């Protein structure tokens, strides 16, 4: 059923004679190609669901492989000028370009993923992936026999650091003695580097591997070496037919549905949307066939605890140099999480400055 009021509202909003028949135009702009299979793919999957969900009410388009900086600003400007009413810029690196372009196009709604700056027509959104990481970390801690878990990190930015910390807290909730070894490969997309890091982690004794990179090479290598793996961003189980433990997948759809609905309803606000398990924005998918049923149930119970209000970053939490970072009885605020630049106790590795 199509609302008769809606086109009228749109008409007054855009003051365009043709708005009557026209769907809301929504554009997505990504830094990495969808073809690398990680972060960008998770957004693309959500865009497809969004289009199906809203049907004729919206029309979406996607541009990928846009370099941050001048290129991003040019593409954003073009998208706004082309008459897209809503533009999602999905990379942290697009933040300043989005701010500048949003100022020039006050009638267009901009949304920026993973950033912290908002403006009158610029909102931000992010997934509390550290919650999914925490749950997966718990499972990893339970299954690890050696008590050493390998983590292939890309760049030491807060988003990645938060994931490592959430994961390690989960690991230690299952096994307080366990250690998470981190190797930084300083690339999102070099599959070969992921492989090399994974090989080293396994030869140092890791028997569960996880990664924060675009490609699934770490998962695949872990499977070849016969150790468990925790996939990230999308369902990576196809790359580890034997030893896939679970994947922590991003589900952007609830956030996109909410944001687009708000624009359609004309009550959109430039909020900082941060969705977690409560919106099913971070999900554990594709449990491996050899993971014990009992463990899956345990993790489900832990997820219920998170739903019930248990915080992942609840004090006392010390960093891996021994200094107390979150005091007994307090919980890390969103600001602290957004700027997180220290590694929790139990992480073997350092965050270089």
């Amino acid at each position: 059923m199509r609302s008769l009021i809606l086109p009228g509202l749109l008409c007054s909003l855009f003051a365009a004679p043709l708005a009557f028949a026209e769907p809301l135009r929504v554009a997505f702009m990504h830094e990495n190609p969808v073809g690398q299979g990680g972060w960008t793919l998770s957004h693309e999957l959500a865009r497809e669901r969004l289009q199906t969900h809203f049907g004729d009410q919206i029309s979406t388009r996607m541009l990928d492989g846009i370099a941050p900086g001048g290129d991003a600003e040019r593409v954003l400007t073009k998208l706004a000028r082309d008459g897209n009413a809503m533009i999602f810029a999905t990379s942290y690196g697009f933040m300043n370009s989005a701010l500048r372009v949003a100022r020039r196009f006050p009638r267009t709604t901009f949304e920026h993923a993973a950033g912290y700056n908002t403006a009158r027509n610029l909102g931000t959104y992010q997934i509390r992936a550290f919650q999914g990481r925490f749950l997966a970390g718990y499972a990893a801690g339970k299954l690890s026999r050696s008590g050493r878990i390998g983590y292939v990190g890309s760049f030491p930015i807060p988003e990645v650091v938060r994931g490592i910390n959430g994961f390690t807290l989960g690991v230690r909730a299952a096994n307080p003695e366990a250690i998470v070894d981190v190797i930084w490969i300083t690339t999102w997309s070099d599959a070969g580097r992921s492989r090399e890091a994974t090989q080293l982690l396994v030869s140092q004794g890791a028997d569960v591997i996880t990664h924060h990179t675009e490609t699934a090479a770490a998962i695949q290598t872990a499977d070849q070496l016969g150790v468990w793996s925790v996939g990230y961003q999308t369902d990576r189980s196809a790359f580890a037919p034997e030893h896939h433990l679970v994947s922590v997948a991003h589900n952007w759809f609830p956030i996109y549905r909410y944001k687009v609905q708000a624009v359609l309803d004309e009550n959109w606000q430039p909020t900082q949307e941060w969705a977690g398990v409560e919106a099913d924005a971070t999900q554990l998918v594709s449990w491996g066939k050899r993971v014990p049923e009992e463990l899956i149930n345990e993790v489900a119970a832990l997820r219920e605890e998170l739903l019930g209000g248990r915080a992942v970053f609840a004090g006392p939490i010390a960093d891996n140099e021994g200094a107390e970072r979150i005091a007994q009885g307090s919980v890390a605020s969103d600001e602290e999480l957004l700027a997180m630049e220290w590694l929790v106790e139990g992480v073997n590795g350092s965050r270089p400055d």
Partner: protein
Amino acid sequence: MDLIFIADLLAATLAATVPLALCVTGVVIGERSGVLNLGQEGIMLMGAVCAFMVALNSGSYLLASLAGAAVGAAMGAAFALLTLVFQSNAVATGLALTIFGTGLSAFLGEAYVGESISGLGPLLPEALRTVPLLGPVFFGHDALFYAALVLCLLVHRVLHTQRVGLMVSAVGENPETAHRLGLPVLRTRWLTAIIGCAFTGLGGAYLAIVYTPLWTEGMTAGRGWIALALVVLAGWRVSWGLLAAFGFGFISISNLVLQGLGVTIPVNLLATLPFVMCLLALVIVSSGRRSEREPPRSLGQTYIKEN
């Protein structure tokens, strides 16, 4: 750091070296005859995506390797057609080939993202592979690894010890004189352009069907460019090229190892190490006045046949 760990490290480095070594060998073949092809990155990507597609659909790694090499050869032929027949500028044509290969491989591979193949297993019997230390380092590799090694050594032998190699060098050093001596300059360059690029395509195939048996856009991550630099470093000799490829692989893996050992050098600084070493080596190489380390004199120049 125990011996087993060092053995693991060497084995990993050797495997990491193969794509680079194949590409370096391919570049040496072309450049010794004066063919400067900067399209290596694009050719490698095309080799990778086509090999992956064939491996996934046919299940045959032999066919997939051949497909990678064949696509490389086809791109080499296109390069030869443009630069030798239509006499386009070699640098511009090579760059165009990189852009073309990067784009086309992304387009062709779109449907193959998220697909996985099992990869090629070890070739040699268990008994050899489990020899302490030596086993994992030298005997634990796959068939394509040994094939690549044999191919590169064969090229070394042909280019540096056989009459054909001297012919190729003569064409690369001074095509006019070579022509007057009765050597087929254009035919030589056609062949070296095609064979060289077949090696590069095979290097891409190794990446996509053996090393990390998956396809992701831009998966060569600059290896084609690094190979071009390593050839300069190696003074256009295959043996030094292979050594340089191994050295580069070793340094870039060492960067990961040092992190694992808890050495607190800033990661970004560590990541620049292979490139810094490359630059240093280049400076050392070019400061020693050794004529055999100089580039082929007609490298990248357009050759117009005299009558």
